[in-house]
């Protein structure tokens, strides 16, 4: 069997076997976006949302990345895009990618399943590639279902058509962001022997980078562009209506480099 084919086989088979939990994640994410659109009038429309945001303390608004300018000129477009930055949604996506990445290698070692796969003519790098591939496919399902649910919700609530191009860019950027986070979690997973430890460290990495992206000192630092979250601000992406190539390249570089590092580390370690 071709090694890339083996990686694809691992990705596809694992995705199919875990489709139950994947559809749960995707269903919850889709429901969230649907409710956000159809429920807008129930919370008093944009005015209602705006007064809710005003009730938050400045620190909370900063943590949620609601800038004074955004708050002052809060439009329907901003509201729909903001659902992609809502703590519930990004927490859900982060939980999916970090959980799957942690379980991918460290979990396989912990359960012993890794010995069954790697006693076959399958190189270790193909296992790593297959597992990150499974995360990527699953994440794509979650994001596409979210986009679809938001489009349907917007139609039902008669909020006007959802522009296709900006949201396509948003979905691609979100996919790259969470793949970057996932690949770094995979590095941890490639050297750990317990899924719990890998998940804890992966979560710390995800939270730390998010918090760094709201701290003024870090945001204004010349190295702020290195932070994956720095390139993901949905209201800005939708407003720009074009691809932010630099940010996308940084995210792709994070995902690619971290996957290669995970392959190298996993390829050299003892599987105890």
């Amino acid at each position: 069997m071709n090694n890339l084919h083996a990686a694809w086989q691992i990705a596809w088979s694992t995705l199919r076997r875990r489709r139950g939990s994947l559809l749960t994640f995707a269903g919850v994410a889709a429901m969230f976006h649907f409710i956000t659109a159809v429920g807008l009038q129930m919370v008093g429309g944009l005015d209602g949302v705006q007064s809710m945001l005003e009730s938050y303390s400045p620190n909370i608004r900063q943590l949620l990345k609601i800038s004074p300018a955004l708050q002052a000129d809060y439009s329907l477009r901003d509201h729909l895009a903001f659902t992609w930055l809502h703590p519930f949604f990004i927490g859900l996506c982060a939980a999916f990618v970090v959980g799957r990445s942690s379980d991918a290698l460290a979990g396989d070692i912990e359960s012993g399943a890794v010995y069954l796969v790697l006693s076959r003519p399958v190189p270790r790098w193909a296992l790593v590639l297959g597992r990150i591939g499974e995360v990527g496919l699953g994440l794509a399902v979650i994001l596409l279902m979210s986009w679809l649910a938001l489009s349907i919700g917007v139609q039902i609530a008669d909020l006007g058509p959802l522009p296709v191009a900006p949201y396509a860019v948003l979905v691609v950027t979100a996919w790259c962001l969470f793949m970057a986070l996932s690949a770094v979690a995979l590095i941890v997973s490639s050297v750990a022997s317990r899924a719990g430890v890998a998940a804890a460290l992966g979560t710390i990495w995800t939270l730390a980078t998010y918090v760094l992206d709201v701290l003024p000192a870090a945001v204004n630092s010349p190295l702020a562009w290195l932070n994956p979250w720095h390139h993901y601000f949905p209201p800005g992406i939708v407003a720009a209506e074009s691809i932010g190539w630099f940010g996308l390249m940084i995210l792709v570089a994070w995902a690619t480099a971290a996957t290669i590092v995970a392959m190298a580390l996993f390829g050299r370690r003892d599987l105890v």
Partner: protein
Amino acid sequence: MNRQVPSNSPAITLQGLSKRFKDVTALENVDLEIARGKILGFLGPNGAGKTTTIRILTGFLKPDTGVVQLLGHDMRDPAAALAARRQLGFVPEIAGLDTSATGQWLLDHLARLQGQAPVDRDLLADALALKDRDLRRPIGRLSRGTRQKINLIQGLQHRPAVLVLDEPGEGLDPLAKRALFDVLGQARERGATVFFSSHVLGEVESLCDDVALIRDGRLGRVDELDHLQRTMQRRVTLELAADTDAEAQLRALPTVSQLRLHEHRWQFHIAELDPLLKLLAELPVHDVVIEPPSLEDLFMQYYDEAATTSE
């Protein structure tokens, strides 16, 4: 790169194998060679180094020093190890199964990764009395014995040339264990090499051509089972006519040990039979029982010798 290896190379070669985990020496200078078509039982108590040896042999662990070859392929070289694994069937300890998968999914998935048709799956399922409905249930809901049957089938279903099994009898009932030994015997008949670890001596005794004893990471003895049994001590129980004092004569026999009189019967161990038989011809014997050594005897004898040597 040419990965061809001579077809007459041993199935398994371990030379000067050593492995340490931090301060613990797991293996020390292990040498072992298994010819093609043989069944070797790898015996040792828990923690002796059996699983570490198997994981090095299958390429999961890298040895600190030494040579590891499977069918002539150097298992330290990733590309050569891939070539070797095309002909390998590996049965890890029972914990190696993903409990959320069904047996059917797991067997299909692993067969695809092996790149070979699971030609013996149905045959093995029949032999091990594994039901279709058990294959369709998540492995986590199956009994330990049924999980172990699935574990065995995944390792054997593609008819490999070399089988490496880590405690394969664990969790199996006596009938399934018998079926497993029949399957392994059939594998040997078609020319496969079988390397299996166990701490259950009876399993090895009923199946193996050769045995290797390991303790504290050191390989103590590798021998043909028949030869080992011939050269190791037999257990003798001897009843003589009343008032016969034969203690001095028995004690003078070469290789005699553990001589004692218990309820008018002499009991002792002896390796050389000829002098004993000559002596028995001269004595008024009422009854004599000469038992071949069980593997348990061999095992204990080896460890006694090892302990004496180390003292």
